[in-house]
C-alpha cells in the first residue's frame, strides 16, 4: 500500500512545487525584502506541505494554503530576534538606493525605476507589504486577503490605500524628476 502511495504523493508535491515555488519565493521576497530569506521560506513551506499530507486534514485547495503558510513563515522570521538583528545589520545595504542617499534623479537617470519602486516598497510597513503583495501581485480580492491575514476587510483597505498612496508618491518623485529633465 505504502509503496503505491509514495510515488503519487511525491508526484503531487513536485507538481505543486513546480506550480507555486516561483510565486511563493516572489511573495516572500516582497514581504521580507530578501531573496535568500524568501528561498528559505519557500523551502520551509514545502517541508510543511509534506507534513500537511501526513496530517489529519489534508487541504483541498493548496494554493491559498501555500500562500497562508508562506505569509505565516515570513511573519515567524520577522518575529525571530536573530532575523531582526540580521536585517537591522543589513538594512543599509539592502536599501542602499534609499539609505545611501541615491536621489530620484540618479535612480531615474540610471533607468532604475524598478529598483526605486522595490526599495520604496521595502519602506512600507510589514502589514502594508503583505496586503499589497497579496492584493496586487497575487491577485487576491480584498476579501481573500482579509481571510489570509486574519484581518477585517476595512483594515485591509486601509493598509492597502496607504501603501498605494506611498508608492504612487515614490513614483511621482521619479516622474517629476523626469519632467525636469
Amino acid at each position, binding site marked *: 500500500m505504502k509503496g503505491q502511495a509514495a510515488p503519487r504523493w511525491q508526484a503531487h508535491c513536485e507538481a505543486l512545487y513546480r506550480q507555486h515555488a516561483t510565486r511563493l519565493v516572489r511573495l516572500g*521576497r516582497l514581504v521580507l525584502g530578501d*531573496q*535568500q530569506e524568501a528561498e528559505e521560506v519557500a523551502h520551509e513551506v514545502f517541508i510543511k506541505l509534506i507534513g500537511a499530507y501526513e496530517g489529519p486534514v489534508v487541504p483541498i485547495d493548496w494554493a491559498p494554503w501555500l500562500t497562508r503558510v508562506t505569509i505565516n513563515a515570513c511573519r515567524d522570521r520577522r518575529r525571530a530576534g536573530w532575523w531582526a538583528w540580521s536585517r537591522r545589520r*543589513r538594512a543599509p545595504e*539592502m536599501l*542602499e*538606493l534609499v539609505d545611501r542617499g541615491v536621489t530620484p534623479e540618479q535612480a531615474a537617470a540610471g533607468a532604475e525605476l524598478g529598483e526605486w*519602486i*522595490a526599495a520604496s516598497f521595502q519602506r512600507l510597513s510589514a502589514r502594508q507589504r503583505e496586503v499589497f503583495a497579496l492584493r496586487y501581485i497575487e491577485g487576491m480580492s480584498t476579501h481573500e486577503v482579509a481571510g489570509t491575514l486574519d484581518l477585517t476587510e476595512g483594515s485591509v483597505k486601509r493598509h492597502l490605500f496607504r501603501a*498605494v498612496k506611498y508608492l504612487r508618491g515614490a513614483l511621482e518623485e521619479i516622474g517629476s524628476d523626469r519632467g525636469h529633465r
Partner: protein
Amino acid sequence: MKRCLSERTLWLAHEGAARERDLAHLEGCLDCTARYRELDEDLSEITRALRDHASPIRRGGRRNRRRWIAAAAIVAGIGLLAGGEAILWRESKALVDPQPETTAEALSLLEEVTLLLSSPGVSAASVLVADPATVIAEMTSQDSIEDDSIATGGGRL
C-alpha cells in the same frame, strides 16, 4: 458643481468598492476620469516593477561576497594564531627538552668540571677565580708530569 472625488474614493472605485453616486460622478467628470486613468497606470507600473524586479537590490551576491570575505578573514586569523602558537610551542619545547647533542655536550662539560675539581692541588675557589684556560693548562701539565713519573718509575722498577 459637484466636488471631484478624493484620492481614496478614486482608489475605491478602482477596487470596485465605490458607491453608485461616486461612480456616476467619475463617468461624468473628465478631470476625475483622467486621475482615475493615472491611478490605474501607476498601479500597473508599480505592480509590473515589483513582479519583474527580482529584488530591490542585487545584494545577494554582494552579501555573499562579504560573508566569504568575513569567513576567509576568520580562517586566516585562526591560521595565524595556530601558526604563532606552533612556533612558540616549538621554541618552548626546545628550551624544556633540549636536543640530544646539547645534552651530551653538557654532560662532557660537567665531567670535565668534576675532573678538574677532584684533581689534586686544585681547589674549588681557585677554579672559580682563575682563568679557565690557565686551569686547563695546569691540569694537562700535571697529567703529563704524572704520566712521566709513572713511566720513569716503571722503568726504575
